[in-house]
């Protein structure tokens, strides 16, 4: 194959592939949390939701909302949204104080990630 032929094939292919790129990241990492990381809330939330930047599997996920004594305040098991991007759990009525959200998910590429963040509920 001549160099000219190679260039004729390779250059448009590279341009096409790079321009088709979507701005997404590999593995599943939180894109948005609700309540937000570090938020101070005037009223307790009914549920905690984390939106990820890549779809997650329904198996092996966990989402805990721990109070200052380490007690899990989740009022049910974590649910994955139909599109696979969101993990949420209902929580019992939270009293004023600091809470730690601990999560663990498995991305569809089979690798798992985990992490935690805090938020605060104030006296109304």
């Amino acid at each position, binding site marked *: *194959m001549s160099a000219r032929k*190679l260039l004729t*094939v*390779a250059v448009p*292919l*590279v341009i096409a*592939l*790079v321009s*088709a*790129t*979507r*701005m*997404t*990241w*590999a*593995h*599943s*990492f*939180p*894109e*948005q*949390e*609700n309540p*937000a*990381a*570090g*938020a*101070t809330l005037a009223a307790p939330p009914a549920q905690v939701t984390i939106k990820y930047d*890549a*779809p997650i*599997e*329904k*198996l*092996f996920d966990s989402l805990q909302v721990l109070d200052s004594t380490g007690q899990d305040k989740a009022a049910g098991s974590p649910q994955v949204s139909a599109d696979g991007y969101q993990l949420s759990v209902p929580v019992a009525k939270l009293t004023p104080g600091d809470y730690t959200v601990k999560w*663990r998910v*498995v*991305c*569809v*590429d*089979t*690798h*798992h*990630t*985990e*992490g*935690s*963040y*805090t938020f*605060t509920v104030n006296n109304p």
Partner: protein
Amino acid sequence: MNMSAMDMTPEWPAALLAWPVILAQALIFGSALFCLLLNWSAARHPRSGEALAASLLGWWRILALIVALVSPIMFVNEVAGMAGVSIRAALPLLGEVLSQTQSGHTWEWRLPAAVALMVVTWLPLREAARSLALVILCAGLLLLGSLKSHAIDFGATAVVVRFVHALAAGAWAGSLFAYWVGARLHNDDNRVSVEAAKILSRQAAWSVSILIASGIYIAYEGLGHSLYHLLYSSYGRVLSIKVEVFALVLMIGAYNRFYLIPALDQPSARRTLLRAVGAESLMIVGVIGLAALLSNTPPARMSMSMSATGVKAPVTKLSKNSGTQAGAAIAQRHDPNALHKFIGLFTIRD
């Protein structure tokens, strides 16, 4: 905006298990394809492809056995990684993973395909039919591998590109391997050897072009669209080594293509070509090993918390399943005009 990368280490056990399987699939795919091409193009030397396929049969049986034996171990190891448990504790979870996860669905096809690959190498078939069956089965296995790779996080385009990349790598590695085996066994037949070298050269040129184009895309995605990560992430460093070794292989290939193949009428050139192809093949084994490592290294990414509000600096801790590295992201909203500007700062601890 000040950001630094959260770095995570490769998963060595998974990479070491994947290496022989990927290598075996690539070699079978490319060598069987080479036999078919040799059969179709060598009209003046009918059945030369079938003769080469017969010479490769012993190798194919060994390679297919590796795929069939190691694939189930890969699956169990993968389930253990997903669940964060030991290999033994993962065994009761296999059925659940097979039926309820995307990865499991690919394994539902992959495990029988691995067995079928081994069966085809033992069936009493015409060599051309066997070659075709091996090409199809290996292509299927490579596609299933792409469907559970990092590419799945990036969407269908990335999966297709990764599949094409794997096919091109297999075509290149396998054709070199087949030529090396064939030339060693049939070096008395100069005409067939010259014909095979020309096919090898053409196949290598196409494969390398596709590898470079698709490799740029995959690297661009894997690096999180930032060349910074090429230097400052595990993924980037493994990728750099892979590209460097690939460049060396490419130099040997270019020497073969432009200096040795035009002089194939001389026996000394054929001998030198055989040695060069042997060296090239060995280096490709290394490149495929690095590819296996890369596919088990979390891609680099820039990350920052996107949800900072209030007076208290929010903290998000992220960690990988190895538990050896963790990053803490601190982000703070600064813009009073509701324009969201965030400062992300990751600290890496060993």
